[in-house]
């Protein structure tokens, strides 16, 4: 029984992308940018502060890093909670030591449950983005649009109330989206999101409710991806970040400013045997000439200020 003839029809075989979300463009063809004070590499340290519910539903899939054992999975719940109690304070010390300006992506539920932690972050004055409601509240293909709309409204509204800030940036839990997520984000006052990891620089993303900026938060360089998905050694994590830093600095000599985006989880790199690796990375990167540590929002503002 052959496949339906539709299988050899290609309705989107045309110039550009196979969808209308953004324009096709090669990075090497774009106008170079430069960062403030003639810096060449923007260091975006993005810290995910996450709440993994013990009563995980796993709809439509169990989130990476979530519960894997029968209820009550105390082992994974507490391992993740460790990051918010212990690991994060190791992070903050490291950031201060190397004068790194982090950006925090917060699950709203964590901000609700841990006022002390929220206060600590707020007091620092660092940028706060919304990382969805919690790690078991996924956005996914086929999700009821009203349900997702409520989820986004609630996640953003509550985080705005708790922080008193307008909250411009968004990162979906597990970076998963439905076909409607970009519209719902734009309709709820989001300026930029970091779910689409298809570039090394920001680009404009179309929605029916206006434009968003897609910010390039590399998945491949994420601590969780390298250590937990790839099972690479801690030494290899350091090597990969340093090699990426060297390469991007070199590329920036001829092609303009670049971004080194490090997505971090305090439950991963905040462990006693790993924190030194984060410190080594920060020491290496911040000691290079031409590196500008900045929040995601500041990097985007500088970038936008240089667009025609």
């Amino acid at each position, binding site marked *: *029984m*052959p*496949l*339906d*003839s*539709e*299988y*050899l029809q*290609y309705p*989107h*075989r*045309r*110039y*550009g*992308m*196979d*969808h209308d979300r953004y324009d*096709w*463009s*090669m*990075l*090497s*063809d774009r106008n170079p940018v430069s960062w403030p004070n003639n810096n060449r590499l923007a260091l975006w340290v993005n810290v995910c502060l996450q709440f993994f519910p013990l009563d995980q539903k796993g709809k*439509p*899939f169990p989130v990476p890093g979530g519960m894997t054992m029968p209820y009550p999975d105390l082992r994974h719940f507490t391992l993740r909670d460790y990051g918010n109690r212990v690991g994060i304070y190791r992070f903050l010390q490291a950031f201060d030591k190397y004068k790194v300006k982090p950006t925090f992506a917060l699950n709203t539920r964590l901000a609700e449950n841990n006022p002390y932690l929220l206060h600590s972050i707020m007091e620092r004055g660092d940028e706060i983005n919304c990382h969805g409601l919690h790690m078991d509240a996924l956005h*996914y*293909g*086929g999700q009821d649009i009203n349900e997702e709309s409520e989820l986004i409204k609630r996640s953003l509204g509550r985080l705005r109330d708790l922080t008193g800030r307008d909250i411009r940036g968004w990162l979906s839990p597990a*970076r*998963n*989206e*439905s*076909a409607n997520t970009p519209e719902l984000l734009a309709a709820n006052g989001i300026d930029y999101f970091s*779910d*689409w*990891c*298809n*570039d*090394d620089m920001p680009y404009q993303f179309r929605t029916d409710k206006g434009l968003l900026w897609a910010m390039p938060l*590399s*998945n*491949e*360089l994420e601590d969780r991806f390298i250590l937990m*998905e*790839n*099972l*690479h*050694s801690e030494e*290899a994590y350091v*090597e*990969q*970040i340093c*090699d*990426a830093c*060297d*390469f*991007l600095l070199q*590329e920036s000599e001829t092609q303009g400013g670049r971004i*080194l985006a490090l997505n971090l989880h305090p439950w991963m790199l905040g462990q006693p045997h790993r924190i030194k690796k984060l410190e080594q990375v920060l020491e290496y990167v911040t000691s290079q000439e031409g590196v500008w540590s900045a929040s995601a929002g500041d990097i985007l503002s500088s970038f936008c200020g240089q667009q025609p």
Partner: protein
Amino acid sequence: MKETPALYDYWPYQNRPKIRWPNGAKLAFWVAPNIEFYELNPPLNPHRKAWPQPSPALPGYTIRDYGNRVGHARQMNLLEKYGIRGSISLSTALCDHHPEIIELCKERNWEFFSHGIYNTRYTYGLSEDQEREMILDSIATIERHTGIKPAGYLAPALSHSEVTLDLFAEAGGSYTCDLFHDDQPTPVRTRSGAKFISVPYSLEMNDTIAYAVNKVEPRRYGQMIKDNFDRLYEEGDTSGTVMCIPTHNYQVSCPHRMKAFEEALEYITGHSDVWVTTGREIADYFIDHYYDAVTADIVAKQEI
């Protein structure tokens, strides 16, 4: 279903006719960048899912798009630096989607061979007529956009039928990258009886297999490439070998992997008896100079 593919005969890796590549080279080295287009929402193939998540499957789709937007130019510049012309395994719909990439590769006299239409359209479940239509479409697309009819084939996403190589040979192709049984070119039996061969295209050296399947650390991948080369170069003294690095612009061109790849290329091209070439040139040279002798040797070894 068959118990064996019956595409080639057993040919032991000893006492083979001695192959020498042009200028007395011991090893033919080629790099095969896969330049692919994966669809955001392809039609369902009942035999294989394109993406693990319901559309939009962002992780898989976006990193592959990254390859074309960001990675391609990086890899191209690097290969150029070491005097390597890529032999492109092409999702031929990319000629329509991203003609800029095609132009850049044409300017550099790279080879284009067929890798189907999209890497999200599989051979599984196609009738013979449907598969022929897909293969002819891919060949015609390359010829229309580059002026040259492709000689090689790597089935889209390595999805095959029992007649895939028959169909490609009948369409006028001369070599396949779909078989991993040898470190030298070998004749492949197809139903038309045409001279048709396999050119070694290593899955072990393939960056996606190394990085995404086997989860290899970048510097270890660089070391694996050097070790692979060292042994094939040494054995090439006895009879010329082929080494291929199949790449993907979304794997090897990521900022944290470029250094290891560059070191490996620098190492290989720093050796004197290496023929830095393309898949098509290896196929042509082998067919012109060794196909008959090798075929006779294989026949002789069946009679022992």
